[in-house]
């Protein structure tokens, strides 16, 4: 088998751009997803069922359907609904953020509910408000427990962003597919893509290990 490094070299500039796109879309999505997820996570812990219900439904729908389908619905349905036509970049951010929010919400909820109720009771018994108890007592302990789960979610998100090639968002997989189309070769484009993803997720997991030790 001959392995043509020259075509990889030829495609390297666009693959690097694709890598930056993947990193960018993942970063923004994990950020927006976490913020939205925090709201949804708290919503799901609301004391009354009719407040809880919409958040509960959101999480179930986004976890219960494939990201593949969600990307298509956002790209061909949701975005045109608002803007008249569709934009791959916007669809990419929106679909990944909405999806990531559902998983983040569960991480927040599980983290907060894993803290012994006695902690909250002790805080309240000292005269603290619910908000103070959350801020000074529950969240600092819960966040520590959430870090590994968030790291995991982040890594999954980076890999899942490859599905965005579907809507021609110019990320790593999109450019590998183009490369395959141009040269009609299999190993070079896909092995290169796999290697780039691996380098991304491996550095990410090293970084997360470091953060875990820090907090």
């Amino acid at each position, binding site marked *: 088998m001959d392995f043509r490094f020259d075509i990889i070299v030829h495609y390297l500039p666009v693959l690097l751009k694709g890598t930056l796109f993947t990193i960018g879309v993942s970063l923004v999505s994990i950020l927006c997803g976490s913020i939205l997820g925090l709201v949804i996570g708290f919503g799901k812990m609301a004391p009354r069922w009719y407040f809880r219900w919409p958040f509960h439904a959101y999480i179930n729908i986004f976890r219960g359907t494939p990201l593949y389908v969600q990307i298509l619905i956002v790209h061909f349905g949701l975005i045109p609904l608002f803007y008249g036509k569709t934009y791959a970049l916007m669809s990419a951010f929106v679909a990944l953020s909405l999806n990531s929010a559902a998983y983040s919400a569960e991480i927040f909820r599980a983290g907060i509910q894993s803290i*012994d109720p*006695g*902690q909250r*009771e*002790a805080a309240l*018994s*000292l*005269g603290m408000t619910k908000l103070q108890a959350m801020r*000074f007592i529950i969240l600092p*302990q819960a966040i520590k427990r959430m870090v590994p789960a968030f790291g995991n979610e982040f890594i999954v998100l980076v890999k899942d962003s490859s599905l965005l090639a579907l809507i021609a968002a110019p990320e790593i997989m999109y450019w590998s597919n183009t490369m395959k189309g141009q040269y009609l070769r299999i190993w070079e484009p896909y092995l290169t893509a796999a290697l780039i993803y691996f380098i991304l997720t491996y550095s990410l997991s090293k970084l997360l290990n470091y953060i875990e030790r820090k907090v």
Partner: protein
Amino acid sequence: MEPIISVKHLHKSFGAHKVLTDISVDIHSREVVVVIGPSGSGKSTFLRCLNLLEQPQEGDIIIEGTSLMAKSTRINDIRTEVGMVFQQFNLFPHKKVIENIMLAPMQVRKWPADKARQKALELLQKVGLSEKAEMYPASLSGGQAQRVAIARALAMEPKIMLFDEPTSALDPEMVGEVLAVMKDLASEGMTMVVVTHEMGFAREVGDRVLFMEQGIVVEQGVPEQLFGNPSHERTREFLSKVL
């Protein structure tokens, strides 16, 4: 004299399960009231109603003239006057001992840090743990942790202290050090409501003992009378098992 705590016809259920039935008790300032009774009789629930960690369905609790059930009452204000000590200590594990004690005075009473620190150090000295100030709770023994928890509650300068089986989670050799701190507190005139299985403490320190069973205060009286000559058969039965 007006009682500092007045409980009137209190009812509490969890769903269909009735836990407290028509409890009426007056507690006076400087009084030490000990609550005894079998497991599941509602002692903890009663205590937790006194600072609204549990919300009763019926009746009223009046603390220093303020009804806890009134809509206008700010429960956080009441809780600053009512300290609570838990069976499981519930220290904040992510904060040092001294930070555990300083947090509420600073956040709730808005004390400056140096005033809160001063108070915390005084209290640590009082419970005999000055040298543990900069440690984390995980490094304390059970008895030490409970003494820190008492100091933490006292830092808010409460008028009333509630204790829910403060020595039940301790190894036997550590029970004494915690009871000693509680005795000190009682002799300084703190109003205390103590749920405990330590009958020696009840006899020695209690001004009054309540015997609860199945959500009812069956009998109450001064320790000599309740322990020496209980008037109810159920009290007698319970005491024969624990004494």
